[in-house]
């Protein structure tokens, strides 16, 4: 349990460092992927919406620390998206290799819309512009690409410790 929590903490730090230091230099068409969101969705798909949603909250909060928008906005968007994707995918059949990028891209669209929508409601009027749709769609595509690497990584890091109750419930990949 402690080892898993420690691994999750390290994953969070790694994602924040990559998001703030490396990916600003790797913009494609002016956008960056939301690494925390993609990792949260991966965890939600494999280990359940509660765990994925909680990790999404933590990852979003970590992202918020480096953004101009209010603290908690990304946390809410990431948590809700990861939770919803986790609940929805439980009705799917055993996932194929292409499911990860497709789920991540879909989550990117949902997460982006939630971020802009909730942001607009709490006074971030500058987000309510048509160009935000373009940004959301491009970033979602980028999310799909990084999911090819990030899904297996996040799933491996979040794997429950052997003999823990969570390990017995985990569906595996």
């Amino acid at each position, binding site marked *: 349990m402690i080892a898993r929590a420690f691994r999750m903490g390290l994953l969070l*730090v790694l994602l924040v460092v990559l998001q703030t230091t490396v990916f*600003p230099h790797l913009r494609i068409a002016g956008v960056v992927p939301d690494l925390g969101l993609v990792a949260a969705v991966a965890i939600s798909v494999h280990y359940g919406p509660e765990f994925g949603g909680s990790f999404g909250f933590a990852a979003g909060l970590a992202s918020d620390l480096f953004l101009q928008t209010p603290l908690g906005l990304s946390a*809410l968007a990431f948590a809700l998206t990861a939770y919803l994707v986790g609940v929805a995918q439980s009705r799917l059949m055993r996932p194929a290799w292409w499911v990860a990028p497709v789920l991540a891209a879909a989550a990117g669209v949902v997460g982006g819309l939630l971020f802009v929508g*909730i942001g607009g409601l709490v*006074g971030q009027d500058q987000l309510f512009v048509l160009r935000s749709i373009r940004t*959301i769609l491009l970033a979602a595509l980028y999310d799909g690409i990084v999911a090819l690497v990030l899904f297996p990584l996040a799933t491996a890091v979040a794997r429950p410790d052997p003999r823990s109750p969570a390990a017995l419930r985990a569906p595996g990949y």
Partner: protein
Amino acid sequence: MAEYRSNRRRTILILLILSSITLITLDSRGGGSGVGGTVRGVARDAFAPVQDGVDGILSPVEDWWDGVTRSGDIKDENRKLRRQLQAARGAADRAKAAAAENRELKRLAKLPIDGSIDAVEAEIILGSPGNFEATVGLNRGMDAGIGDNMPVVSGRGLLGRVSRASKSRSTVLLLTDRDSGVSLRDVRSNAVGVLNGRPEGSDQFLDFVKADDDVKKGDELVTAGSEDSPFPSGIPVGRIVSVRKRPGDLNPRITVALYGDASRTEFVRVLVWPVP
């Protein structure tokens, strides 16, 4: 058992939503300067050495990769000569880069800004980590005398203002951010308008200029320095590239080319304004 899991899921979801809404409300009310601002500052300072370290790690890896791709069969004279030629070109490129850097610093020193305003030199080290904002990160913060809302200029003109400063880092809200607005004055005619930020790559417009104001293509624009503006007057910002006036329009459509471009800037000056 299934009902227990379902209740647990619902409870966690509600807790996450309530926590987020509480944080958003507290941070919005504090205007970024309350507990949220403090937590942000601490986090940015804590991550600063890690970010520096990653930058430091990536540079040698890049150099090593360059070295690998440039090395080859040393017995092959032709390839050796090509490598030497490449090395010479590389040195020339480095010299050009150094000269450009030198020019940038000289321009920075010559920018026509009121001499009574102190300035802090800083380097742009980070881009924006998000998709809905135009910001850059500087390598200096409050320890160097930088504070919130201070204007930031490059050698060419105004870039933006400091939106958040922690002890060792500052974030600059660029003029192209949708949350940015600055009142500008036409140097030739003294007509005044407002530049509201639009994303990089889009046209920038000078809004709220009266239809009968005298503005022409080529006019230079500087900060107006109005009473409630965070910018002193007279900082070069850009020039008018087109003016479109249509009958019946209350305001002309004025397109502006900005002088400052953060993507091509390495060194900046943060103006200590308002003067303490």
